[in-house]
């Protein structure tokens, strides 16, 4: 019988390297989250309710994603949360047992148990007083696991429904912990991503409730309202929750992805209004600089970059543009000189993109916001799965969310049966997590 801990403890003041082997999981999760090992069984799709489609309510849809299972490419289960809340983003708790899903309109948060029966997530708690508890924060956006807590950067505030906002924290039981308002000069919010090794958090900036709940065509014709978008990113001392630097990144920088490999102390973002790819690089003195790296499509046509996904080896960055339904794959091997190596039209519109940790599978969904999605025949609503071989995307399956009477699919997160049974392949049991 081995007593590994005893033996290790005997080596006083031992420096232990806690490294990990790469295996399969989505690549854009919190660093505090354990990853699934092996093929994902499900993709959980947080879906925006649509009038006249099914029950019209927001719902969590579970899609089969394992080719070895009979439910591959099929809707496995769906759970309506009742009503339309502008379903948007969500994330797992740090033990991966619960999936938090939020609504941008009324700031409702829904907590699902995904561990007890991964094929049939169960709604176990609902938070309806986020605005009151947080001191007037509106539009909880990103759900980012911390040990025992959830970090929730938001988009707006209750005073004027503008872009001034905050980062809110709850514990895993769904109880409010604290609110950290964005700093003066960089009041807008959107995403927050942590590099725990550097104790640095990056935040980005979008727009307030008054804009994101408005019809996109009307909004883009309102020059004054179009001034009310974020132009900044903030570098934080994460542990102290204190802003250190405000970076000028004009045009609404949205999703942030830190590189995943050791010593890759940089991150990427895209700007929605100016259609640019930006890099945020750590300098020798420990400060950061934001650098405009490349156009995404033709900025003059406002392609509207939305979700991005980085590969676990820091080689590829998938960039979706909503208006033309395109994905462009940048080779980011040289992070200061990214090059488009593949592009493909996914649909008439595309928003979210998620890839497996091994980089072999990529999933796309179509919906951006209820009032920003395109109309008529262009309002395709789908999840589409592809294989990626490093060169091109090959279609595997798709589900029409309108024909299936589900709604507008948005955020995706991966689920696994074996993860909750503790079944893994030997040699892959301890591993670092993906994230970004």
């Amino acid at each position: 019988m081995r007593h590994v801990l005893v033996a290790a403890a005997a080596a006083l003041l031992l420096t232990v390297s806690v490294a990990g082997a790469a295996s399969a999981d989505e690549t854009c999760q919190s660093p505090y989250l354990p990853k699934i090992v092996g093929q994902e069984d499900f993709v959980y799709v947080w879906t925006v309710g649509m009038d006249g489609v099914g029950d019209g309510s927001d719902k969590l849809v579970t899609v089969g994603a394992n080719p070895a299972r009979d439910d591959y490419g099929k809707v496995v289960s769906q759970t309506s949360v009742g009503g339309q809340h502008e379903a948007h983003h969500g994330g797992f708790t740090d033990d991966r047992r619960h999936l938090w899903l939020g609504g941008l309109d009324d700031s409702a948060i829904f907590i699902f148990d995904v561990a007890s029966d991964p094929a049939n997530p169960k709604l176990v708690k609902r938070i309806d007083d986020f605005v009151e508890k947080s001191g007037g924060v509106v539009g909880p956006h990103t759900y980012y696991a911390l040990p025992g807590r959830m970090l929730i950067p938001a988009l707006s505030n209750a005073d004027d429904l503008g872009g001034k906002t905050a980062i809110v924290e709850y514990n895993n039981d769904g109880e409010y912990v604290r609110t950290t308002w964005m700093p003066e000069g960089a009041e807008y919010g959107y995403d927050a991503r942590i590099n725990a090794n550097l104790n640095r958090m990056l935040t980005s900036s979008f727009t307030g409730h008054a804009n994101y709940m408005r019809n996109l065509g009307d909004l883009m014709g309102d020059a004054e309202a179009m001034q009310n978008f974020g132009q900044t990113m903030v570098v934080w001392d994460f542990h102290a929750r204190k802003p250190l630097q405000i970076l000028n990144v004009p045009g609404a920088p949205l999703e942030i992805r830190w590189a995943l490999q050791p010593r890759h102390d940089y991150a990427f973002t895209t700007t929605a209004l100016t259609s640019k790819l930006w890099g945020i690089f750590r300098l020798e003195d420990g400060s950061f600089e934001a650098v405009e790296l490349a156009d995404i499509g033709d900025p003059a046509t406002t392609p509207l970059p939305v979700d991005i996904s980085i590969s676990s080896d820091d080689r590829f960055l998938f960039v979706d543009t909503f208006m033309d339904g395109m994905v462009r794959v940048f080779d980011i091997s040289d992070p200061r000189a990214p090059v488009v190596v593949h592009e493909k039209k996914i649909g008439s519109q595309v928003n979210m993109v998620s890839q497996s940790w091994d980089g072999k599978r990529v999933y796309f969904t179509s919906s951006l916001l209820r009032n920003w999605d395109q109309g008529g025949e262009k309002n395709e609503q789908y999840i589409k799965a592809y294989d990626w071989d490093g060169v091109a995307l090959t279609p595997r399956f798709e589900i029409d969310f309108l024909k299936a009477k589900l709604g507008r699919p948005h955020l995706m997160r991966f689920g696994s049966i074996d993860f909750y049974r503790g079944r893994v392949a030997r040699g892959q049991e301890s591993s670092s997590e993906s994230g970004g």
Partner: protein
Amino acid sequence: MRVRLALAGVAILALGGGPATGEGTPPSFEVPAAGTYELPPITRVGEHQLLDPAGTPGPILGLAENQAALVSFVYAHCPQACPAALAVLQRVDRALAARPTLASRVRMVTVSFDPERDTPEQMGRIARNLAPVSDWRFLTAASNAQIAPVLEDYGQDTQPLRFGDDDPERLRHVLKVFLVDSSRSVRNIYSSGFMTSELLLADLETVLGGG
């Protein structure tokens, strides 16, 4: 629900994404100065009775006013995350020895969540090997049934990790260390790979107001 601990073991580290903590790159950053930041209560835990290496029951915390505890959950068969965490805690232990005022207000408690294998005697062996110089206690439970409500209260997840053979001996867990104040409020939670002794000491001093 009865927590199944008898089978066994490996720690799935809570390291992940974002920049992974890869080989040879332990976290390295300048820790903010103690008292310059806030650690609001995250949640509250109860007081629980467990066994010391002599088999004598006693409280996990047992804190006097203005004291704080670092409570860590480990198991002896853990090959990676637990030794890493104990190495960090050992550095805290040694640092406290040089700061007697702060040390008098800090209690370190290491609890096994694998009581069927980690007997009081086994915890005693761990303690002797670590040779603590501060108030560092090593506790276990009489049974899985006794430890289950403790894990539930702290939010420490564990489950048997199976490799497809008939000899599972590891537990999946996200290793966590809890900073608890004298009102039993949890003031911070750390996961292996992202905690340093300097960070723990700064947080203790922040919660205790100096020393």
